[in-house]
Every structure is written in structure tokens, then in C-alpha cells.
């Protein structure tokens, strides 16, 4: 009865566009375990549009246009798994989000987006949720979950029908963890009228949340799936 949802792994080789406002990117490459990134230090922003970011057209990742399926409702499933962590005191935040189809660049005037991810701060990991609305990072929309060093992955569920996202964190990425299960870390954004359009993008963004000196680098496995739902007449 239940149809499994097979996720797709994002690769830099397939990226639609990349942006590096402020020239903070040191390196980015496909790597064993996912994608490796390194960014400079000494700067800070909560806005995913202020740091290096990459966009993938969701329909290209999936292999079909969203309209073709005629679905009544869909939810984008985004997964961010930590493969190699950065310095846990680096104040790096790594985000994955769904962004609107009419603007690939987060800083474009019409871009809306809903992001979730992991923040590495004060020797700990925290879940993180961030909203972008009409190109602007919505300061009141961001939140950090409870610090938990067992966090190794984040799932972000973004419903097309309406707004917001739910976010949950996992102790182990990509594996059934019968001893620990979920971590209870949770956050939700829903107060902002985001418009993803019919041709949205997946965006990966990195920023430093505090102006900590020194580069920060790590490897993350980022996967995407779409769950289209049809109503039985």
C-alpha cells in the first residue's frame, strides 16, 4: 500500500547556478559522502543570500516537471546529513531550502524560500530554520533548536500547499536508529506567505552566524524528494 519515496542526492556537477556574494567561498566539490564546502571566516550573517549558495532546479533533479503529474498537493522532502563536520565552534550554518521558481538567486527581488539546516556553535550542533521572503531574509522567522551533539541529520518538510516547514533532526543520517530514534528537536515556520510557484529550486546555502576567524569546512550529504499526492475522487 505504501509507496516508498526514493530520495535524490544533489551533486555540484548538476547545479543550475552558483552564487558567492562577498567572495567567501574557498572551495566546493563533489566528494565521497556528499559535497564538500569550505568558506572563509571573519564575517557573519543569518541571511542565506549573503553567503555562498547553489541552486538546483527541482524538476531537473526529479526528472519530471511538477505540473505534469497533475498532483493535487505535494510536499518537498529535503535531507541534510552530516558526513564530515566542521569545527563545532566555527559558527557555520549549513542550510537546504526550497526556493521560488521565478528567481534562482536568493537575492533576486521575488525570491521566497524556506530553509532548514544545522548550526555549529559553541562546540555543539543545533537545528536551524530560516525564511526568505521577497528576497529578504526574515529576521523574525529564524530559530535555532536545542543544542544536541547527537544531531547528524535534519529533515525539512516543505508543503507546497500553503506555507512553512516542519523540521526534525536525527541522531544518525540515513539509517534506522532503533536505539535513539528522533531527537525531538523541532521547529516550524508558518507565518509567512511564501510562494514557490510551479518551477521551484532547491538551494544550499552556507553562512557564518558569528564573525569567527578561520575557514570552516565539512562534507554534507544533501538529498531531495517530492511527494505528490492525488485525491481519490
Amino acid at each position, binding site marked *: 500500500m505504501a509507496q516508498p519515496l526514493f530520495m535524490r*542526492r544533489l551533486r555540484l556537477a548538476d547545479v543550475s547556478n552558483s552564487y558567492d556574494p562577498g567572495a567567501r567561498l574557498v572551495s566546493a566539490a563533489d566528494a565521497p559522502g556528499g559535497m564538500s564546502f569550505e568558506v572563509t571566516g571573519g564575517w557573519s550573517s543569518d541571511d542565506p543570500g549573503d553567503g555562498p549558495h547553489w541552486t538546483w532546479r527541482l524538476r531537473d533533479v526529479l526528472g519530471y516537471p511538477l505540473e505534469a503529474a497533475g498532483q493535487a498537493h505535494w510536499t518537498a522532502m529535503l535531507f541534510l546529513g552530516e558526513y564530515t563536520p566542521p569545527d563545532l565552534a566555527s559558527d557555520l550554518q549549513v542550510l537546504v531550502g526550497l526556493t521560488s521558481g521565478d528567481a534562482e538567486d536568493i537575492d533576486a527581488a521575488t525570491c521566497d524560500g524556506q530553509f532548514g539546516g544545522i548550526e555549529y556553535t559553541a562546540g555543539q550542533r543545533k537545528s536551524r530554520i530560516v525564511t526568505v521572503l521577497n528576497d529578504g531574509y526574515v529576521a523574525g522567522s529564524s530559530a535555532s533548536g536545542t543544542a544536541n551533539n547527537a544531531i547528524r541529520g535534519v529533515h525539512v*518538510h516543505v508543503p507546497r500547499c500553503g*506555507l*512553512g516547514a516542519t523540521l526534525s533532526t*536525527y541522531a544518525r543520517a540515513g539509517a534506522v536508529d532503533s*536505539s535513539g*530514534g528522533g531527537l525531538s528537536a523541532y521547529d516550524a515556520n508558518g507565518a509567512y506567505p511564501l510562494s514557490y510557484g510551479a518551477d521551484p529550486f532547491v538551494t544550499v546555502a552556507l553562512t557564518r552566524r558569528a564573525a569567527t576567524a578561520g575557514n570552516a569546512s565539512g562534507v554534507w550529504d544533501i538529498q531531495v*524528494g517530492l511527494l505528490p*499526492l*492525488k485525491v481519490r475522487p
Partner: protein
Amino acid sequence: MIIPNVFDPPRRMRLLDLREAVAFYDPGSRLNGTPTCDNTGITVPLLGSWGSTSPKDWPRWVFRARDLFGVQPDENAIWNLQGLIEEVTAPGTSSDYAICVGLISHDQPDVAQPTGYGQFVGTIYNSTNRRPHAAWVTAGAHGGTNTGVNHASARHTAFLHSRAGVGAGHTALVGSAVTARSDVTGLDSAYGGLGTYTGCTTAAIYGADPYVCLAVGRYSAVVGAETAKFKVHLHVAPMVLQ
């Protein structure tokens, strides 16, 4: 498992049928007659002059998730219960009639018991309007509610209960979300959701064998019996990472 560029067929949601319920509770005897259920929807008549914001106090039907969907949750790291509540015949929009669908804990189908946990989301008909409603139950007690923004055009409420992790006795789950939209016939790129949203943010313990709960009640003590009809569409999809 790697399956690149495979077309994802839309998951056809199943209709919830009261005849598949494994338990029914009516604390306070609030039903006003016999509910009916067929392919056109579920009709639940309710008495007036009583009310509660918590689905644990409402008439409710309980379904075993693994029987509804053929999913044994332990087999999968991640799955989500998703669905739509479709309004077929609306109650009075000031009747405080309310409908919610919940995911509840494994060890006993009645969420109003000491170890019962549950996250519920749905719609209330209040002050001549429609509004998303989220409520949660912790250890059998009402834990709280969140309500969304009124939107008179809402005719469908979409919800998602995300279940994180697995493992009997350890599964911590996390939250639910509800949105409303005015149409359900197709992807509406121009309109999308209605902007109404609410969510549960309290962790619940679902365990490895959770239940689905349909709860129908009165949000506050408005006088007069009320009847409404809904279709409840549900789907579960286990997520498989590469």
C-alpha cells in the same frame, strides 16, 4: 538504493472509512444520532451546548496505522502521515464544529489515557469563518493548541504529521503542520495555499505501532446540534535515502 531520474507517480491517497476503526470513544456521549460513512464522506451529527479545544474530549475513531497503510514503521527510518480533510457539507460557520486528524501513541488507542500522546490538526468553524487548528495531548492530558488565521475560502485542510526515527519506546516525534487551500483539483501554481497555517511543536512519543485518530467535536459550547460531512484523505510514504 539509487534510482536516478525515475518518475515519481503521484501517491493516490486513500479515503478514511469509519468501518476500519479499531476503537471508538464518545466521552460525554456527544453524538446526536448515528454517524454515517460511505464513498461520499463521513457525516457526524453532534449535540450542542458543550465544547472543548482538545480532541481527547471529542467523539473519536481510532485506526491502526500499520493496518491502514501496510507499513510496519520499524522497517523505515522516516515516514510521514499526510492527508487532506475535504469539506463536503459544511457545518454552520459559527457552530464551533471542529474536525481533526491525529497521529497517536502506540501503546493504547485511547489518547486520553495516562500514557497517550498525540498530535492533531484540522479545522474549526468559528466566528463565521474557517480556521486551522492544531492540538496536542501529552500523557493523556491536553497539552495545548495553536490556531491559524481565519480564511473563509478554505475548503480543504492539508496536514502532515512527521514521525522522526524509529524504535519502540524511543521514537520521538516531532510536530505537525496544517495548511488550508480553496481547491483540490490540481496543482494551482497561481494560487497555492491560502496562507493559513498552524503547527504542533511539542514532542510526542509514538512508538513503533502508532494509531491514526479522527476526532470530531465542538470547539466551545455553542447551543444547538450540528452536522457536517467530510472526506478524509490519507497517505503514508516511507522515505528511502540513497
